[in-house]
């Protein structure tokens, strides 16, 4: 039982996926085989344990299901709307051998919503018994790390550069996919745990700042994410080229400022962010939206629901395609030229691995270009030489305990994995919290 995609909701930026009704949730939970080894739970990077919360729903223990999600995943409500479950828990669902996998995301959303609407008690505020820990960045990894540490009795302070927390979930996902109400639910849980959040408090990752933090706090967790959008060199300097980060954030906060109506938009990229940008452009009234990706349709890294939304919004896909040239009138690109490509080696979906196919040239008139080809670490972090980084990628290198080469400094999320799913960042934050606890416990001995 899956929700239908309603283009009207998308056009009005209204939350599209509401929770399953009680009856639908019961029906869905009833299909679950309640596997002995719960392969769904094994596949969740954050350890949300769908095997358990589905069983709780099936046995009418709805609040118990909400508690399981909240205890295991500090961003459980957000994950229930944006997690690519088809590639994780649902991919492992045993019933796939017989029928459609269980709609785990829908059940998770049901449980979170049920808890909220039926007076689930707030998380008890933990008594602080342990030392101070600083978290830099209140994205999924930072929030997850903070919540886990707070539950263990640490005095946690988060330094967040923005006016609100949740990072990419707050700014980078269209409101029709993720409502403010659901974000607020996870935020409230964090506040209930007594985590101290310092807003408008950017901490650049450099030697001075890290030393300062280590002096005041016993341990530091870096979860700053990738803040600088990647750009194609030949698109630099044009006034009608925008990156997806700015585009999606503006769409979320001040969408009237985006002049997209009746424009021809080309989105470059094939991931979830590219799909979000493309559907957002369509929702804003674009005349035509192209989604140009190196990947073929089958290879698109975006999750299938996002691709379905894109199809619903009549996005024109240009898969297996590369832009080769742009034509401009002043500082405005008016036309792009491209070719279809094929991969030289299999399973390497990077620009270095493409071969252009002769005779496949295409020309597109465009008014706006949105780049959605990933992000990079900030330049300050790149220059912070004391912190060991992955050669070529400039992301922070950590050991299997999420510890950096600087004692007491841990890191997780996109800044460590180079950009992955929200749920993976949650998992890394959780794991790092355990490591920080081990580290500080040993230190105290």
């Amino acid at each position, binding site marked *: 039982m899956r929700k239908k995609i309603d283009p009207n909701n998308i056009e009005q930026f209204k939350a599209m996926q509401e929770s399953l009704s009680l009856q639908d949730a*019961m029906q869905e939970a*009833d299909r679950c*085989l309640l*596997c*002995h080894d719960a*392969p769904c739970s094994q596949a969740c990077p954050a350890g949300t344990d769908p095997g358990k919360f589905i069983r709780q729903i*099936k046995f009418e223990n709805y609040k118990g299901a909400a508690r399981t999600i909240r205890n295991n995943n500090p961003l459980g409500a957000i994950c229930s709307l944006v997690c690519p479950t088809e590639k994780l828990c649902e991919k492992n669902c*045993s*019933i796939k*051998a017989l029928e459609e996998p269980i709609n785990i995301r829908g059940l998770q959303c049901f449980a979170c919503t049920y808890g909220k609407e039926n007076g689930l008690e707030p998380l008890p505020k933990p008594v602080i018994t342990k030392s101070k820990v600083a978290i830099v960045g209140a994205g999924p990894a930072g929030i997850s790390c903070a919540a886990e540490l707070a539950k263990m009795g640490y005095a946690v302070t988060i330094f967040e550069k923005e006016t609100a927390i949740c990072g990419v979930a707050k700014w980078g996902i269209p409101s029709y996919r993720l409502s403010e109400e659901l974000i607020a639910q996870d935020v409230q849980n964090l506040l209930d745990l007594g985590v101290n959040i310092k807003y408008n408090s950017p901490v650049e990752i450099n030697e001075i700042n890290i030393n300062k933090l280590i002096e005041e706090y016993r341990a530091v967790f870096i979860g700053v994410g990738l803040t600088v959008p990647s750009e194609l060199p030949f698109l630099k300097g044009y006034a009608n080229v925008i990156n997806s980060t700015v585009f999606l954030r503006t769409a979320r906060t001040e969408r009237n400022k985006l002049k997209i109506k009746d424009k021809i938009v080309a989105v470059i990229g094939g991931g979830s962010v590219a799909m979000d940008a493309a559907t957002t452009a369509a929702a804003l009234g674009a005349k035509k939206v192209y989604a140009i990706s190196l990947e073929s349709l089958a290879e698109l890294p975006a999750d299938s629901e996002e691709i379905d939304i894109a199809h619903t919004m009549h996005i024109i896909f240009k898969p297996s395609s590369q832009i080769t040239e742009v034509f401009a009138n002043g500082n405005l690109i008016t036309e792009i030229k491209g070719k279809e490509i094929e991969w030289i080696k299999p399973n390497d979906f990077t620009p270095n691995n493409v071969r252009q196919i002769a005779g496949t040239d295409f020309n597109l008139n465009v008014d706006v270009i949105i780049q959605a080809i990933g992000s990079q670490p900030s330049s300050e972090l790149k220059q912070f030489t004391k912190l060991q980084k992955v050669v070529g990628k400039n992301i922070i290198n950590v050991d299997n305990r999420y510890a950096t080469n600087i004692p007491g400094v841990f890191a997780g999320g996109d800044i460590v994995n180079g950009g992955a799913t929200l749920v993976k960042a949650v998992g890394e934050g959780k794991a790092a919290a355990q490591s920080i606890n081990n580290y500080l416990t040993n230190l105290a001995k």
Partner: protein
Amino acid sequence: MTTKPNLNVTFCGVKFENPFLLSSSPVGNHAEMCARAFDAGWGGIVYKTLGLEESFKVVMPSPRLNAYNYGTKRFIGLQNAEQITDRNIKDNIADITALKKNYPKKVLVSSIMGYKEQDWETLAKMSEDAGADMLELNFSCPQMATKEGGYRVGQNFDAVERYTAATKRATKLPVMAKMTPNITDMLPVALAAKKGGADAIAAINTIRAITDIDIDAFVSLPNIHGNSGITGFSGAAAKPIGLRFVSELYNSKDLNLPISAIGGVETWRDALHYILVGGTTIQVTTAIMKYGYRIVEDMLEGLQDYMIAKNVKSLDELKGLVAKKLVDPSEFNTRYQVVSVIDENKCIGCGQCYIACQDGANQAIIFDSKKRKASVNEARCVGCTLCKHVCPVAGCITTKEVDTKTTKHAAIIE
């Protein structure tokens, strides 16, 4: 082309074009409804029970129904607080007269209920005069439990015999006595009816039950202005109990009366089950309340296809085939022992069988977490087949016979 098998049955000398009847209930409340049921293909109807207003004035409670839901399955049974007809006896008799005039080949059974012998005689005569083909004596309405009426009569051997005899005195029509299942052993009551002259037995009426409870209002359902009651339960969930009673009646040599079987029939397969345990005609209400008269089409066609497949010419060939194989559990052949066999190719690795065997049986299933496959440790398997029943994959778990002389059972048997 194969000709369609004949579904005619003869029951107490009355010919039915097919064995399917409406049972006495709201589905046969008046002539217009019954006419539509006949048009839909039902072989007969048992008209909503008639009573005499001077003996008992019927006022129906409201709300009077509650569906029994289980998990996401809705309406697997129905509880009702319905009583016998609340229509005027003259109107009902006029309806029966008109129905017999318009549908002379269809069977109309008049169901009656009295509170004293004279009531039964009067109602029997009125029914016969109106053209009814048979009478059904309602000894079993769970909602009308005065000392001399309703299901308490069905628990009272003497009253059953007296009322049956009174009815038989008043009419030449064949008479069937409808039994209550709210009794430990139905046979003595059925035998009392036979002693009073009953020509057939109808079983079962509804089972006294509580289907649901409002945990906020602290009252069971249906909530009748702050109260509820233990009232009649019917429908698919009641069928296993119906099959039990019908088979017991059929297997009694002392009784030896034809049976009109009732209890949770929705499909031709349900009906066939009742025939196989000894039913001759089949009565239906709850499924009609849920799906309408049209379901008889599928019952007729399905039963005919089954008869073709089995090369059966008449339903009499099927009657009681299964009842004959019911023995006392002490007579089971325990030399025959099986163990479960799991088809590794069909196993999807959910481990439900493992959990069930671990916590509900004999710890005889091995779960290989790496391969995600279950297998049977035959030395521990007792052949209970719990695993087979929890397995979600059709045909994945089967059984095989084991040699009781060389296995662990050898020590137990002989």
